[in-house]
Every structure is written in C-alpha cells, then in structure tokens.
C-alpha cells in the first residue's frame, strides 16, 4: 500500500521528533554518568578529577540514603494504597445511577487540575497550620490540642496531600474500566443470588485488574519523583526526604555534583525497573 515515496516522506516526518527526544534523553544522561565518576564541586574548586566509583559508594553509605529510600517507599506505597482502594470504591459508586452524576464527577476530578504548589501551600497553611488551620479549629472545637501536622505527623500529612492530588486520576481510570463491565452479566449474577462481595471478588476485581496495574505503574513513576509538595511543605525536614529530594539537595543545595549525579543514576535505574513493566502492558495493547 505505502509507496516508496510515502515511506521516505514518513521517515522524514518522523525524524525531528526522534532526533529531539534522542538528544533530550542521551545528552543529559551521558553528562550525569560522566559527572557521577568525577569529584565535581563547583563552589569548592570545580572539577577535581576522576573519582571512580567513590560517589556511588558514598551515596549509598551516607546516613541519609536508607532513610530516604524508606521514605520514598512509604510515600509511594501509602499513596498507591489509598488512591486505589478509594479509587475503586469511588469508581463503583460513580457508576451507580444517581442525580447530578456529571457534577459529582467534576467535583471528584477537580484536585487533579490544581497545580502542585497550590495544593501543597493550601493544605500546609489553611488546613494543617497548628494555629489558624482548619484542622486546628476542628481539634479545638472537640477539646483536643491542635496537632503540628507537618512536623509531628509529617509523613501522614504528606501522604494525605499527595493522595488528594492523585485520587482523581485513579478514580477516573478505574471508572472508565468499570463502565466497560458487562452489566448484563453482573445483573444475571445478582439475580442468581450472588452477594455483592462475591460479585466484587469474582467479576469486578478481575475486570479491573488491568486498569489497577496501569494506575499503579503510572502513579509510581510520578510519585517516585514528587518534588513541589515536599519543597513547599517541609523542605525535606521531619523525615520527609525522599530519594529524589535527597538528590536535589546534593546537587543544588550542597553543590556536590558528583555525589548527586551518582544518586541520579540510582534514581534512573529505579525508575527504569518500574518502566519496563509499564511498557510491557502498553506494548501488548499496541497490536
């Protein structure tokens, strides 16, 4: 079907996108790899020569490395758990007949469109502030002492903020999947007397498995690198320093480029492990 001429035209049209992305991927990647093997301290003498694997070893052995990995895993795991459990419930609920479905959908989806710096700042000041925040008012109303959310319960607070941002995404995708369920089959099962929990476990959940997997993978990729939420709320203090925030601090705050780059290489490897699984699923869908 395609002529020789249209093939070469096609290649020509594809080229700019491929070349740009190739450059965008390779140039910084090679530079990061290069820096990770150098003793590079821009403010303390610049490039001080070859470092071998020192930066890699030092990054892993530093006292902040393992806590940061732990923090990252808790945030990613916590947010995934909350958004998926609530997302499934919300998706099933929104699929039910009701009045004003469109409006409810809009209300539920809205947080996704709020820019991360706004949501972080609004939650931090207007809700979690220990003096004037809304939570403090509510706590006082019930006679309890207000909590200093972002220092005393920093991780829980952060997970709450990030979950609020990502719940709409999970809900929307799961809702799309729920809507493609065969409702006649479900009704038949209901008529045959199958209780809700067995319909849920044997019919709904298997149908949602694929959508859940995709939500997990995509959210993981974004959550591994959340930045603004931490930057605005705690600045990495009170045990909220994730791996990517630690790298950010090494690079920009302590200006240790070698060490930060070695950390960056670890982060890239970590993200790629997740990415491989996502690509398999997306790839299968392409055929």
């Amino acid at each position, binding site marked *: 079907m*395609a002529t020789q001429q*249209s*093939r070469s*035209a*096609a*290649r020509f*049209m*594809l080229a700019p*996108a491929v070349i*740009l992305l190739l450059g965008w*991927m390779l*140039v*910084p990647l090679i530079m*990061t790899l290069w*820096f990770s093997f150098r003793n590079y301290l821009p403010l303390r003498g610049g490039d001080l020569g070859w470092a071998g694997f020192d930066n890699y070893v030092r990054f892993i052995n530093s006292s902040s490395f393992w806590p940061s990995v732990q923090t990252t895993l808790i945030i990613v795991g916590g947010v995934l758990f909350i958004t998926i459990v609530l997302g499934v419930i919300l998706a099933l*609920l929104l699929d*039910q*007949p*009701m*009045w*004003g479905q469109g409006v*409810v959908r809009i*209300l*539920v*989806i*809205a*947080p*996704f*469109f*709020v*820019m991360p*710096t*706004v*949501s972080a700042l*609004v939650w931090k*000041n*207007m809700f979690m502030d220990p003096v*004037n925040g*809304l939570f403090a*008012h509510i706590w006082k*109303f019930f006679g309890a002492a207000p909590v200093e959310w972002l220092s005393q319960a920093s991780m829980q607070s952060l997970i709450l903020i990030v979950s*609020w941002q990502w719940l709409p995404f999970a809900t*929307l995708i799961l809702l*799309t999947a729920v809507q493609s369920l065969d409702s006649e089959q479900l009704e038949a099962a209901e008529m045959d007397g199958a209780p809700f929990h067995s319909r849920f476990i044997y019919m709904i959940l298997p149908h949602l498995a*694929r959508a859940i997997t*995709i939500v997990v993978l*995509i959210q993981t990729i974004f959550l591994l*690198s959340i*930045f*603004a939420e931490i930057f605005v709320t705690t600045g990495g203090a009170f045990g909220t320093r994730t791996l990517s925030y630690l790298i950010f601090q090494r690079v*920009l705050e302590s200006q240790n480029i070698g060490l*930060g*780059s070695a950390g*960056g*290489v670890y*982060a*890239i490897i970590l993200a790629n492990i997740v990415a491989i699984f996502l*690509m398999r699923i*997306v790839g299968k*869908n392409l055929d």
Partner: protein
Amino acid sequence: MARAVTNNRKALNTAIAWSIGILIFFPILWTILTSFKTEAQAISDPPVFLFFDWTLENYTVVQERSNYMRFLWNSVVIAGGSTILGLIIAVPAAWSMAFVPSKRTKDILLWMLSTKMLPAVGVLYPIYLIFIKLGILDTRTGLVIVMMLINLPIIVWMLYTYFREIPVEILEASRMDGATLKEEIIHILTPMAVPGIASTMLLNFILAWNEAFWTLNLTAAKAAPLTAFIASYSSPEGLFYAKLSAASTMAIAPILILGWFSQKQLVRGLTFGAVK
C-alpha cells in the same frame, strides 16, 4: 414496587456520592471562599463559611503587590508555546507512524514513552549547565523547550491513537484521485483530526501549566510562571490566608475550567491508550 426500590437506592447513591464529592472538592471550595474574605475573617475562630463580608480587595492587592499578570503571562506563554511547538513536531511524526507504519513503529513509540520516565532530578544538573551555557536559564524560551520535550511523548502518543481511528480507506481513495501528500494532509486528514488535535492541545496545556519541577528549578525572577509565583507565597506571606487564597484561585481557575472539558482525554492521554 421495583421502581420505588430503585428510586430509594438512587436517592441513597446520590446522597453518598454528593457528600464524598463535596468532601474531596472542599479544599478548593474553601480556598475560593477564603479569597473573598478579609484577613481577619480568614483566620477567625470559629471559621466563617458563607456569612462574611464578601470583598474583592485581596485580588487587587495580590495583583499590585506581586504583579500577578506577569506570572500569568509567563504561564500562558510557556504552556501555550510548548504545546504549539510540540504539535508542530508531533503531528507529522504521529501521522507517519499511524499511516505508514513500519516494523519499528511499535519500538519507536515505546521508546518515546520511556524517555518520559527518566526521573527529572537525575538530569537536573546537566540541564541546568546546558541552560547556562546557552544563556537560556530563567527565560521563557528555555522553559518552552523543556516543557515541549517532556510532553512530546504524550503528544505523539495521543495523536497517534486519534489518527489510528481515521479509516485508511479514505486516504487511499484520495490518493487514487491523485491527491498529493500535502493535499492529503491539509484537506483530508486535518479536518478529521481536529477533535483529536484539540484534545491533545488541551491536555498538554494543562500538564505544562501545572508542571512544578523544571519551572521551579530553571526560573528565578524573569521567566517564573504561576507555579513559582505560588511557591514564593510560602512563609511569611503564606500566613495571609485571604491573599494566598486569592493568588491560588487565580492560578488554578483557568485550568479547572479547561480541565472539566478534558476529562475523557485525560484517561487516554495519561494511560497512553492502554485504558479506553
């Protein structure tokens, strides 16, 4: 009888769903409400919900004090510019992969997707360095380029999935009638692809508008968009809730409205066509 049960159940569904919807939306609602209060009312104990003296003062103060319009303009230029530039590059690429697929098309698509997964922080310093060398640190041009590059895979993917839905027979027929490649794209393809292109534009505009890693790290005073403007409202200004709320409302309002139109495209765009 059956109908009555259905209606009861519908009422129950409605009540539960609306309560949850309002609960989830509440932080946004609260921000919008607070933006119309005076500072004293904004922190009053107990909090006032609706019955306060509505005022527009905060909006004028925010504009005067921090020059909101300049940040807004930066956001518009960065989000709009990167979306348009991205489309110019992505439309031909998506067209060629959708209509003249080769053995490598699938690999190229997946590879493009994989560039999106490179953690930004891992390449922060190289990009920073390149920006300094090229003299585009803290310029809108620099951010337009970065935003275009990080969103290019999504643009290509979305367009590809839309183009694939256009029946090839129509294109073949036009070729039989002697249409050149250029005519084919302008007269046949573009009109059919407009809805898809529009949704792609919308989603990418939203993503670029809200992006908060590169915008925070590659801008200072000149090119800072709204994400950075709000981040600068951290303490001590952040303690003026009414002004913080007014600034926040202005930063999110345009996107909330656009976002409501793009719900469906969101799923397609962010799952790379894996969930439809």
